[in-house]
C-alpha cells in the first residue's frame, strides 16, 4: 500500500510533452500525488468492501470443506442434473442466437423496409427490462392465461424461451457494427468474378463476421449460464426436470446450506472469469488483424 501512496518523481523523460509541474511517462500517465494517492486508497477500500471481500468469502466458503466436499456437492445427482440442464440450455440458446442474431443484424443493416427502425429499438428492450419483468412479459403471452393456449410454466421449453429473450441483443449488437463497416469493394469483386450471393456470403462476408459472432455468443452464453430473474416465475424449480444452477443456489441458501450454495456459485464465477478472458483474447486478435 505504501508505495502507491508515496509519489515517486517520474524519471522517465518524455518525447514532446510540455513539462508541467509533474512528469508524465510515455503513455501520458502521471505518478500519484498525495491527493490522488489518498483517492486511490479510498476507492480501493470501497471496492474491497463491496466486491473483493464478498467474492473472497464465496470462494472461502466453497473451499472450507476441502476439495472432497466441494466435488461431492457438485456431483450430487440433483445438483449435477441442475448444472447439466443449465449448460445444455445455455449451449442450445447460444447456437440459436449465433444464427438468428446474425440474420437479424443482416436484415437490420442490409434491408430497407417500413418499420425497420422500430425493430432496431425492439432489440434493446430485453436488455432494458428488469429480469423479473421479462419473465412476467413472457408469461403474459405464453403463461397459464395464454391467449394462444400455450403454457410454458415449469417446462424446459419455457427456460429455453426465457434465455432466448434475455440474450437476444448480444449477437445482434456485436455483429451489426461490423456489418456496417464491411468494405463493399470486396463483395463487388467477388460478384464480378461470378460468385453467387451465397458463395459471396460464405467466403467473403462470414469470415469477417466470425470474431463478432464469437464475442456476442460468449457474452450470451455467460449470461444464460447465470440467468436468474427471468426464470424465477417460469421454471417450476422441479429437481431433475426444470431446476437450473442459479435457482439451485437459492434453494441451498434457503435450506441453510451455505457451502453448497458457495460451491455452485464458484463454478458460475469461474465461467464468468473464463468468458472475460476469452473476450479479451478475441478482441486483441481482432485488433491485431485490423
Amino acid at each position, binding site marked *: 500500500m505504501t508505495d*502507491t501512496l508515496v509519489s515517486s518523481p517520474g524519471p522517465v523523460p518524455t518525447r514532446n*510533452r510540455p513539462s508541467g*509541474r509533474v512528469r*508524465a511517462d510515455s503513455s*501520458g500517465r502521471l*505518478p*500519484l*500525488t498525495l491527493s*490522488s494517492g489518498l483517492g*486511490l486508497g479510498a*476507492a480501493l477500500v470501497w471496492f474491497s468492501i*463491496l*466486491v*473483493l*471481500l464478498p*467474492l473472497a*468469502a*464465496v470462494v*472461502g466458503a466453497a473451499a472450507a470443506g476441502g476439495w472432497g466436499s466441494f466435488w461431492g456437492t457438485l456431483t450430487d445427482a440433483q445438483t449435477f442434473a441442475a448444472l447439466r440442464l443449465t449448460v445444455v440450455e445455455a449451449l442450445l440458446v447460444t447456437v440459436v442466437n449465433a444464427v*438468428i442474431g446474425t*440474420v*437479424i443484424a443482416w436484415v437490420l443493416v442490409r*434491408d430497407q423496409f417500413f*418499420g425497420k427502425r422500430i425493430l432496431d*429499438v*425492439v432489440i*434493446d*428492450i*430485453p436488455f*432494458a427490462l*428488469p*429480469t*423479473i*419483468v421479462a419473465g*412476467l*412479459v*413472457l408469461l*403474459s*403471452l405464453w403463461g397459464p392465461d395464454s391467449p394462444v393456449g400455450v403454457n410454458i410454466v415449469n417446462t424446459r421449453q419455457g427456460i429455453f424461451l426465457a434465455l432466448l*429473450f434475455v440474450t437476444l441483443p448480444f449477437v445482434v449488437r456485436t455483429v451489426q457494427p461490423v456489418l456496417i463497416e464491411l468494405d463493399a469493394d470486396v*463483395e*463487388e469483386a467477388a*460478384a464480378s468474378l461470378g460468385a453467387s450471393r451465397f458463395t459471396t456470403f460464405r467466403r467473403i462476408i462470414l469470415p469477417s463476421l466470425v470474431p463478432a459472432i464469437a464475442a456476442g455468443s460468449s457474452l450470451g452464453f455467460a449470461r444464460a*449460464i*447465470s440467468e*436468474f*430473474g427471468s426464470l424465477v*416465475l417460469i421454471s417450476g424449480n422441479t429437481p431433475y426436470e426444470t431446476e437450473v444452477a*442459479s435457482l439451485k*443456489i*437459492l434453494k441451498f*441458501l434457503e435450506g441453510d446450506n*451455505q457451502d453448497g*450454495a458457495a460451491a455452485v*456459485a464458484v463454478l*458460475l*464465477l469461474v465461467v*464468468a472469469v473464463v468468458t*472475460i478472458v476469452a473476450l*479479451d483474447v478475441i478482441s486483441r486478435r481482432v485488433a491485431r488483424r485490423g
Partner: protein
Amino acid sequence: MADTRQIRARRGPVAYALRIFVIVYLAALVLWPLYEVGKQTFAPAKAGAEGGFAAFWERLSDPSVTYAFNLTGTVAFWAVLINTVFGVGISLLIVRYRFPGRRVLSVLVDLPMSVSPVVVGLALVLAYSTGKGWFGEALEGIGFYIIGTTPGLIMATAFVSLPLVIREIVPVLEEIGTDAELAASSLGANGWQTFRRITLPSIKWAVIYGVVLSMARSLGEFGAVKIVSPGAEFRGETATLLIQNRYTNYQEPTAYAAAFVLVLASVLALVVVSLIRKEDH
C-alpha cells in the same frame, strides 16, 4: 459505387424470406408479449369491475405498492450516487495515473457485470450476515447490520451496476488525451480547477449516459436484492420483489400494474439514451 448499391439492393426471394422471418420472430418473442402486459395492466380485475386507467391507478395506490416503489427509488438513488462518484474517480485514476496493479484493477472493475446476481447476493451474505458472514460478528458488535436492511439493498444494487459509469467514461478520457489538462495546470490551475473546468465538461455526456444506464439497472435489480432482502410486505420489499410476491400469490393485477411502471421506466431510459447518443455525436 452505384454498382455496389445496386448489387446490394437487388433483392431475391431469400431477402424477403429473411425479412419476414425477423419480423415474425421479434413480434412473437418481444412485441406481442409486451402488448399482452399492457392489456393485462388495464384489464378489469373481475368481470363487471371497472378497468382502464382508474383500476391501474388504484392498484398502484395500495400502501404496500407505494412503499415498494419508494424503497426502490431510495435504493436506486444511493446506488447510482455512490457508483457515479466512485466511477468518475476510479476512471480518472486508471486512465491518468500510473501505479502498481493498474491493469489488474481495470480488469477487476469490469467483473461485477459478469457475476450472476444470485452470486452477488450470496457473496454479500457470506461476508456480512450475522452468524454466517466473515464480518457478521464484528458488525453486530458495533450495532450495524447490512443483510436484511436498506444499506444491504444499496450495496447489492451498487455491486451489480458498478462498471456501467466506468465503461462510459474510460474510453472518452483516453480519447481526449491530456493536452488541455496539462495546459491548464501549466497556467497555474490546481487539480480541482482543472477537473471542474477542463475534464468534467468533456466527459459530461459520458457521465450522464452512465448515470442513465445505472439508474435503469438499479431500478430493475432483482436477483441480488432477492437474496439480501427479507422481502416481506413493508419490510424490504422492492418493486421487483413485489412483482414476484404478488404474481405467486395470485394477485396478478397488482403484479402487472407494477411491472407496467417498470416497463415504462426502461423504455424511457432507452429513449433518453438514444437522445444522448445523438447529442454526443
